[in-house]
């Protein structure tokens, strides 16, 4: 079966500095893969290359078997590739509802309509409320995004990505910046994602990684150190040295 997302030999350098080196990665349908690595390993750069924010120097990106390497970011998104940003990229001056409606509207072509009111298409609104409900944001629907606490804003960020009805979802540190009292909200959502979606999550928090991931890819200095199951990674001495050792985390203690 064709993989949902395939990255082949991706290379990217900024001037003389290579930031992504010959990366190969495969996400099957329903994948739950974590991308880990020390700071500066190039994790977000890799996501930017996959989503089309950056163009690679060489290599290919395939979505459901189709080569999307030459497509723009927006074109890739329209084909079912969604992402969240490490720092929220929301429409802060608009309500949560409108953030969602706009996303859905761009997806189903409603935003091509110059004539009817933005509130006229019920299916868009209904779907928006459904998404908000599954993320327990319905009560905030009519609030402006900038008035929400950061943790809730982070949920809106994920809601937008889900409203794109993606086949592949890339989450860039979804719990980053969220106070620990609210991080369970994020984690519950991530745990409850649709099993059909292929998910790649960049994370630093090993608890989250080991709870969520069925596979792990370790990135160091722009190159893949190794892929493996959580157990394999945990017991990999190389990984421990390079990464887990640095983090000083007891993630290796999980049984």
């Amino acid at each position, binding site marked *: 079966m064709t993989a949902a997302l395939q990255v082949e030999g991706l290379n990217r350098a900024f001037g003389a500095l290579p930031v992504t080196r010959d990366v190969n990665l495969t996400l099957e349908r329903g994948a739950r893969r974590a991308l880990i690595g020390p700071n500066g390993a190039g994790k977000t750069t890799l996501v930017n290359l996959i989503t089309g924010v950056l163009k690679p120097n060489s290599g290919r990106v395939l979505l459901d078997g189709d080569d999307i390497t030459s497509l723009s970011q927006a074109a890739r998104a329209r084909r079912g590739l969604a992402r969240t940003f490490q720092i929220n990229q929301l429409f802060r001056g*608009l309500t949560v509802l409108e953030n969602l409606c706009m996303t859905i*509207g761009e997806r189903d072509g409603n935003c091509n309509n110059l004539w009817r009111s*933005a509130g006229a298409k019920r299916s868009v*609104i*209904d779907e928006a409320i459904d998404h908000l409900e599954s993320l327990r944001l319905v009560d905030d629907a009519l609030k402006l995004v900038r008035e929400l606490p950061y943790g809730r804003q982070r949920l809106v960020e994920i809601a937008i990505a889900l409203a794109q009805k993606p086949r592949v979802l890339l989450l860039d540190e979804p719990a980053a910046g969220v106070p620990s009292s609210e991080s369970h909200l994020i984690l519950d959502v991530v745990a409850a994602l649709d099993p059909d979606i292929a998910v790649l999550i960049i994370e630093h928090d090993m608890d989250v990684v080991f709870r969520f991931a069925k596979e792990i890819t370790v990135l160091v200095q722009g190159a893949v150190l190794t892929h493996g199951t959580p157990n394999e990674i945990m017991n990999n001495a190389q990984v421990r040295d390079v990464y887990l050792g640095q983090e000083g985390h007891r993630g290796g203690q999980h049984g």
Partner: protein
Amino acid sequence: MSASGRERARERAAEYLLRRHRFRPAEALPWLIAIAAYFIFPDRMTFGSQVLIMVMFALSLDLILGYAGIVTLGHAAFFGIGAYTVGLAAARLQWNEPISGLFAAAIVAGFVGFITGWFLLRYRGLTLLMLTLATAIMLQETGNLRSDISGGYDGLPGLTFDPLFGKFDYDLYGHTYYLYVLAVLAVVFYFVRRIVYSPFGQALTGIRENVRRMHAIGSPVHRRLVTVYTIAAAIAGVAGALFTQTNAYVTLTVFDFDNSAKVMVMLILGGTGRLYGAFLGAVVYMVLEDYFSKLSPTFWQFGIGLLLVLAVLFARRGVLGLFESVGQYFAERKKS
């Protein structure tokens, strides 16, 4: 959440959006004032027409600047194209029918907007400012080059136009013209209002608020921008056409950078991205200019400069923004 709870949430959401887009009674105010002016100031009708034309021009810029968030310095180009479409048609082609002139101006200006927008809207910031400015100047220079056709800076004087619908003739005091311009403005405004409150208008706001996010959710940003730019150009063209018709005269000064700057100032004063900011800003500016520049042009220029500085420092969202802030302040007081 229960099914009925969800249903209630949906209703509330739909109601919220629809309510914001419905015509509010307060919106009748500017129109009532415009009609009242017809009766209260019958001897200032020619000036009144020019004010309404500026409102339309400012409205067209608000689409680009206020809603899509694109800053350009060459919007006067489209005003000029519309003005000259009608002027040249009347002077060289003996085409004097006013309504069809408006359509022609809209089409020509819109077309130029489409072409230039398609190329230029890939850029932002200083680059876009310079490109739009240079394009406008080049258009002006082209007109100057073929001053045999365009009349150069002396312009095309003595243009005549047929009576509206073959019936309403133009009187010396511009009464018919005023109502004509007001009617056209009303039609244009209706279209602009629909666009702004449509899903497309929402997308424009999205582009203004966070273009990065728009790309990430698959919005064809460039296409959206070219679309709104074309529409804005067409409307500016209609404003220009009305200018030529009401003045029976057009010169190359319609392309001046001064015009582009003037309309931007009007929008800032009134408040961008608020539809009625164009009304408020244009009226306030034109009235002040009319009064002060007669008193002393130098004093007027100093005043407008000072007003700009103060507006940026203390009233960034224009007069309407001030009203909103005041309104918010009282709303907060009521809550506590």
